[in-house]
């Protein structure tokens, strides 16, 4: 019986901690700027630098410089490439988070949500974060074959343009709806 009390006590502590966490002010509340910022950020995706990153991580370059430059240059090259790879991985995560933010805004504006879609996204987010940490750790340790990293960027590239178009269309329709609401109500609307 006292074991029940300990277990329930721990459960209650977790529940109350989660409650406090849920009540924290959100980093980005739904405000007039968040919608516009999402569009602006989308236009500056890190995947734009994908060709340069591909070049920096190319296996042929590494092999050539290793042959021509000796062990000192090889070590320096390895360190530099790892630094670039880590920065690139971090930038990809920022792009990923940008997509998630836009997905949330679209969900907030939509009068109906698909439970399956939202659950799937939550599952994929958790999975992404776990794999991201694993790859990051491998990079720190120096195990990861760098050229394969460039493939990650292709997943994100090109998608942002379509998202931007969809968000703009929704924003325009929302603004039109705001115009149709009385002036006293308009002050309390929080989009665009």
């Amino acid at each position, binding site marked *: 019986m006292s074991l029940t009390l300990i277990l329930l006590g721990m459960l209650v502590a977790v529940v109350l901690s989660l409650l406090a966490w849920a009540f924290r002010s959100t980093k980005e509340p739904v405000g007039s700027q968040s919608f516009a910022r999402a569009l602006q950020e989308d236009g500056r995706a890190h995947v734009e630098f994908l060709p340069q990153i591909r070049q920096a991580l190319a296996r042929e370059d590494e092999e050539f410089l290793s042959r021509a430059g000796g062990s000192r240059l090889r070590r320096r090259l390895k360190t530099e490439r790892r630094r670039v790879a880590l920065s690139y991985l971090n930038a990809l995560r920022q792009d990923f988070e940008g997509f998630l933010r836009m997905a949330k805004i679209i969900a907030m504006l939509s009068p109906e949500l698909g439970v399956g879609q939202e659950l799937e996204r939550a599952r994929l*987010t958790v999975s992404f974060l776990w794999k991201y940490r694993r790859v990051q750790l491998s990079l720190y340790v120096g195990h990861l*074959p760098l050229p394969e990293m460039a493939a990650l960027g292709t997943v994100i590239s090109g998608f942002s343009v379509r998202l931007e178009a969809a968000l703009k269309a929704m924003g325009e329709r929302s603004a039109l709806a705001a115009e149709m609401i009385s002036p006293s109500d308009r002050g309390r609307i*929080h989009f665009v």
Partner: protein
Amino acid sequence: MNGLVDLVQWVWGISAGAQAVLCWVLFLSGNFRRIPVFAAYALANLCQAILMLMIYKRIGFRAESAVMLAWSWQACIQILRAAATTEAIRLLLKPYQGIWGLGRRVLAGAFGIIFVVALGYSGRNIGWAILLVDRGFHLAFAIALVACLLLVHYYSVPIHAAYKALLGGFCFYSCTVVLANTLGGILFVGGNPNFQAIWNLLTMGAFVVVLFVWANALRKPLPEPMPNVGPPEAVNSYWEISPQINERLRQLNDELSRLWKSEVTHS
């Protein structure tokens, strides 16, 4: 022993006074119009306190009929509590119809599952079963509420301080009842003669704290609910974009897995 009973009576008196204050505050601020179910819940609590005082004076504290009456009334209070919580979350998510639809399902699903599991653990003895069912209800209620609030946080929906106080108060009280019922059961099984007084002190003490927090938060009128933020056509964009985002995330996950596999092969 007598000192403990006196303390329980004092806390009971303070609790009844705080309930009256809360009803008065709800009436003065006009918030009873904005949150009528919560106002009904507050009034039902006050009526329960008055009714119980009359019953205990007339037929005694330990009479079986008094206990059955008290728990029957308590069942009505629990239903009102659940309804008042749903009302607060509905007001909070009124401008976000899609999230409200999802939140409603999370609230009902989480509550249903945990409560059914808790019912399975309740005993055959009626007195014992009531205690366990009550604990199960509060546990299910607290977890479902927090699950729904996590969803609200995930979508970055702002929560007004008064609603934080209302929902936080419900959750805190339920958590206290879960622990108080468990501790009360342990003391009862261990033959402690003060088990009832300790249980009463814990639950009523927590309730008094929550009542004062609610009264303070509801002094000012609650904010007007915002109109819907999205146009009805936004649902088409959602169904168009959302699967694409998920597909893109899936691809990204696959790429990361491939990267990991190639790392394993190389080393």
